[in-house]
C-alpha cells in the first residue's frame, strides 16, 4: 500500500499506541457516535450478517458460529420500550443497561420475526445473560 492510500504516520502511531489483545471477551462497548452497542463474545475474526434494521450478528469466519453483535439505535429503542413496557424501566437506568434485556425486549417488541431471527436473538440474549454483560450509555 502506498502512503497515499494509508493513514498519515501520526495516525498510524496513534493506532499503534493501542496494545492489542490485552483485554478479554466477552465485553460490550456503547458507541455514542453510532448510538450502538458492540457485543464481543469471542476475540476472533468475524463477518457481519444483517438480522434486521437494528441488529447485525457477527459470525466467525471459520465455522459461522455467533461471536458477537452490533445493535443500532440503542437510546431510541430503550426510550420506545420503556414507554411501551413500563416494566422495562426496572432493568436499566439512564447510563447502564444489561445487553440481554435489550435483546429480549427488542425481540418481543418485533411483530414479524423469522425462525432464524428468533434463534439469533435468543442465542445472543442467552450469551449476554450468562455473562451479565452491561453497557454504559455515555455521551460523545
Amino acid at each position, binding site marked *: *500500500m502506498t502512503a*497515499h*492510500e*494509508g*493513514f*498519515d504516520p*501520526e*495516525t*498510524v502511531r*496513534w*493506532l*499503534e499506541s*493501542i*496494545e*492489542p*489483545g*490485552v*483485554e*478479554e*471477551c466477552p*465485553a460490550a*462497548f456503547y*458507541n455514542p*457516535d*453510532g448510538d*450502538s452497542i*458492540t457485543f*464481543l463474545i469471542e*476475540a*476472533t*475474526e*468475524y*463477518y*457481519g*450478517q*444483517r438480522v*434486521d*434494521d*437494528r441488529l*447485525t450478528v*457477527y459470525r466467525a*469466519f471459520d465455522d459461522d458460529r455467533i461471536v458477537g453483535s*452490533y445493535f*443500532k*439505535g440503542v437510546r431510541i429503542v430503550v426510550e420506545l420500550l420503556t414507554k411501551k413496557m413500563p416494566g422495562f424501566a426496572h432493568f436499566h437506568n439512564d447510563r447502564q443497561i444489561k445487553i440481554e434485556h435489550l435483546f429480549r425486549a427488542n425481540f418481543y417488541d418485533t411483530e414479524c420475526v423469522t425462525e432464524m431471527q428468533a434463534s439469533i436473538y435468543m442465542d445472543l440474549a442467552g450469551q449476554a445473560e450468562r455473562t451479565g454483560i452491561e453497557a454504559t450509555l455515555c455521551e*460523545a
Partner: protein
Amino acid sequence: MMSIPVRSGYRETLAINPDGGRLDRKILISYNQLDFLIRRRGESAHREAIELIPMALRKPTAIFEGIRDQGIKGLCYVCLPECRYTGRTDVVSQPRESNRCFCVYVDDDGVIIEWRWDECDGKTGFPLAYETRFVRRAL
C-alpha cells in the same frame, strides 16, 4: 468541502469524497472504539484498522449514501482487499473469500461508527441487499 471540528479522542483523516471523487472528505476516527476492538480482538483488528480502513476510505470500490436502517444520510465505503487478517497475537493473512467485502460506515457528522467484513454479492462485490439498505450508490 465538509468541515468538522476535531474532538478530543478523535483523529481526522481524509477519504474519497463521493461528490467529485477527490480525496478531500474529512473523516473522524474515535480512539475509544478502536481501543475497545483492538485490545480485545488483537493483532488482526490492529491490521484492519491500519490497513483496511484507509483502503476502504481512499480506494473504495463503491460508496453508498443513506444508511436506511439507521435513518441517517451517512456513507458506507466498500472495498475488496486481496486478503483478510487472522490471529490475536500472531497475525497471518488469508485470501479474501469472494463473498465478503470490507465496509466502513460513517455517520452524518463524518465519524466512523463501524467497520467490518460484510456478506457481499460475489458478482458486484457490494454488500448484500445494498439496493434496500442504502438510498443510492454515490460512487
